[in-house]
């Protein structure tokens, strides 16, 4: 319904209304893109609580930066870019905090326990468990490789779209994903052994 409204309005009109500070249009934008943003944030952070906070941050940034959006890229690409950048910033802040506290040792232990928990007879649980293994391995990739894998695997973005979001060329995305998948295979090999 909201998507239709946005389609009917057209991106240009939507932008004009947003830049004029129309709160109703902002809510429509939120309804249309909340799933996309939350998905990216969840797959980048691997935590529901963090994803919720980052999603809020992303929409606040969108609201503040909408005036500077010139419409050169698609609105969704622009929002993807803000989401990815916010996630990466959050991650680096988290790493910095981990340097001064030892909480990460506990979290690491918990996540490993979650992965190797042998008592999961239910098939659904098993599925989520195997997925958790992949997510855990993805989290261990470098920031750029992780971003490319998340956008490719979970968001089904084309190489061209990923290139626009990250701000690199299409061949660079190809080689980034190539290296990411080789590294991922290597990490999964260690876990599956």
């Amino acid at each position, binding site marked *: 319904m909201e998507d239709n409204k946005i389609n009917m309005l057209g991106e240009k009109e939507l932008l004009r209304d947003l830049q004029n500070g129309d709160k109703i249009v902002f*809510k429509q934008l*939120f*309804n249309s893109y*909340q*799933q996309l943003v*939350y*998905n990216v944030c*969840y*797959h980048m952070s691997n935590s*529901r609580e963090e*994803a*919720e906070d980052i*999603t*809020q941050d992303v*929409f*606040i940034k969108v*609201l503040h930066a909408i005036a500077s959006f010139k419409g050169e890229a698609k609105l969704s690409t622009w929002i993807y870019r803000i989401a990815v950048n916010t996630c990466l910033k959050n991650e680096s802040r988290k790493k910095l905090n981990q340097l001064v506290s030892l909480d990460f040792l506990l979290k690491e232990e918990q996540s490993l326990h979650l992965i190797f928990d042998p008592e999961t007879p239910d098939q659904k649980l098993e*599925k*989520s468990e*195997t*997925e958790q*293994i*992949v*997510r855990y391995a993805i989290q261990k990739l470098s920031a750029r490789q992780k971003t490319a894998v998340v956008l490719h*695997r*979970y*968001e*089904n973005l084309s190489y061209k779209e990923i290139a626009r979001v990250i701000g690199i060329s299409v061949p660079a995305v190809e080689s980034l*994903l*190539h290296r990411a*998948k*080789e590294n*991922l*295979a*290597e990490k*999964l*090999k260690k876990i*599956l052994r």
Partner: protein
Amino acid sequence: MKHKTVRRKLLRYLDNELEQDELKSVRLHLSSCPECNNYLKQLEKIWLTGQHLSQVEVPPFLWTRLSVRLESETEVPVTNQFYAAMKLFMKKALIPTAIVITIFSGILFGSEMHKDNLKGNRETTIMQDFGFNYFSLTPPGYVGENLVDFNATK
């Protein structure tokens, strides 16, 4: 092809992203290696099942929480233009001014300390050069010590 090389290529194999020659060599290796075949099955299971679980349910009341945050983060509008200009000036000028003051006070303090040190050093070197320190009122073990003792016994 080595096991390690093949296993690194298996995710791209599952996503049909291998070049023709790579694909041929991987298939050739898989046809003769039960270990790598078994590994491929495991990998396929975890890699392909996850793709269907990509959509995550958005938590309820996300909009409510966001609007509360937006309301709390909205700054009070500054009506007085002079006040706004002053605020901007303070923001831009305060930090550099503080840095400059700190540097200058450090230089001044340092130069004063240096002057004191020079003065003290100069005095001690003059004293040493002319042997004045031997003529202090209470020199340790001065020359006439024995004479005093001699006089006392006499």
